[in-house]
């Protein structure tokens, strides 16, 4: 089954309440993670409910991508647990981790297409690696997925010939080619023009609603993600600063949430990187 074209997204039941443990496909419990002496997470707990779109938001540098890498088992938490499909990721050996990853699709920020392969071969890549399919069946499958993202006509192009938005859509086709149960999007809207952004928003929504794929979207585009997310987490300073439906987040009173949602340049998240006094620094003699 392929997702419908953008613009024909069917309605769905409300999934905007706080996810319970039993519903959670991804359950991150009290995770601590530091790089050197810099603490990235100081006890983060988030859950992604089955069949819902969960947004992970936060200012740049708050560790959103790091959280995805923890969920995918690319890095290990120093404390806390990361449970995906009921399995504790930290305890899985390489083979088990790879089996788990076959149930997950991931869309990278820049698409991460394999540059020495055509669009068709890029989408066919995971199938060729994991499943033995007759070539005609494989061709049909790949063309179906490319049709779903509107790029069937670009099957023979090379990644270098694609625009940023097209590359992102090809990467999305590749991410869904094995029909994953969980799709993870890392900053899917970065650097896209409004049309491409709208297309990606619609695709995320339609994939979620027509195929029932659980989705985790990491983004700091409040407007776009607010339009499609069922539940959102706002990360700041290594903690979950706020959580709830997009509407609830807009109503939250914490300063950091208000600053983030309204896009104020200064506030709890300062505009300036910590620095010595401005005037003193201007007046002091340069070191030789």
């Amino acid at each position: 089954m392929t997702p419908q074209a953008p613009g024909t997204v069917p309605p769905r039941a409300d999934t905007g309440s706080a996810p319970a443990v039993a519903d959670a496909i991804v359950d991150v419990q009290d995770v601590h993670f530091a790089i050197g002496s810099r603490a990235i997470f100081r006890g983060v707990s988030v859950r992604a409910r089955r069949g819902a779109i969960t947004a992970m938001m936060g200012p740049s540098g708050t560790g959103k991508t790091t959280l995805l890498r923890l969920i995918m088992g690319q890095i290990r938490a120093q404390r806390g647990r990361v449970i995906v499909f009921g399995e504790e990721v930290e305890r899985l050996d390489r083979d088990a981790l790879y089996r788990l990853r076959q149930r997950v699709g991931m869309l990278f920020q820049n698409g991460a297409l394999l540059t020495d392969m055509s669009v068709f071969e890029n989408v066919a890549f995971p199938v060729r690696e994991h499943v033995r399919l007759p070539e005609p069946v494989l061709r049909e499958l790949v063309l179906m997925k490319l049709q779903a993202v509107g790029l069937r006509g670009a099957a023979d192009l090379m990644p270098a010939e694609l625009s940023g938005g097209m590359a992102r859509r090809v990467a999305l086709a590749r991410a869904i080619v094995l029909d994953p149960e969980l799709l993870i999007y890392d900053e899917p809207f970065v650097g896209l023009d409004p049309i491409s952004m709208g297309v990606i928003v619609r695709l995320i929504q339609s994939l979620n609603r027509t195929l029932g794929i659980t989705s985790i979207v990491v983004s700091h585009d409040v407007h776009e993600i607010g339009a499609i997310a069922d539940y959102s987490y706002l990360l700041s300073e290594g903690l979950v600063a706020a959580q709830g439906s997009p509407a609830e987040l807009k109503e939250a009173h914490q300063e950091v949430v208000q600053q983030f949602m309204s896009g104020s340049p200064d506030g709890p998240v300062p505009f300036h990187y910590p620095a010595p006094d401005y005037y003193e620094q201007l007046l002091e003699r340069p070191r030789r």
Partner: protein
Amino acid sequence: MSAAARRSIALDALRKAGAVTLFGLRVLGQCVPALSRPRLVVLQVYNAGARSLVIIMLCGLFVGMVLGLQGFNLLQRFGSESALGVAAALGLIKELGPVLTALLFAGRAGTSLCSEIGLMGATDQLAAMEMMAVDPVRRVVAPRFLGGVIAVPLLTAVFNSIGIYGSSLVGVTMMRIQPGTFWSQMQNAVDLHDVNEGLIKSLVFGAACSLLAVYEGYHAEPTAEGVGLATTRTVVTSAVLTLLLDYVLTAAFL
């Protein structure tokens, strides 16, 4: 240089040798699965080998011609210029062929391997493979390593053949050595043991240069500068290691 600094450099070198060895074992472990998809390996033999043919042939020709000139000049002093064919063939087959081919391979194909893998890392292609449950060492690194190991002995054979032809051009065509003498002495003096020595050397150099290239590429910092530095390290380390291994192997064969 202080004793502490010397110790630190020695420790760094040891750490790096250990890391390369461990990575090499991991790559070797993935070579059998990689061989089950011969198309990938053949493609890398083409990339590393066939695409290096022109530079190998040109260099082989000039090295052979220089050997012819220098050899003739030297042997003439002892009235033994007829032994030029033997001298050129043995010099090329046992020493110059494997060493120079490995150095040229490191400069032409090793840099290409390193920067290709490094850029794949910098553009998240390796991470994307990991996320698709595809081991990049099996899919990307092992076929390239095997391609290098297979290509270097083949390139060495081409280098040697063209080099011997180059020395015959100088010796027979220019210096008027009797062709019968030139070729028959070579045929009598060069035996299978000499060819095997060259073959083993080229296999070892091919494995060393390919391993260093894929190691540096795989562990390159994912930035333009990082990939550039890794590429430079590949050439420098490959050259030094090739010459070091050449000494060790030559001593072992004597």
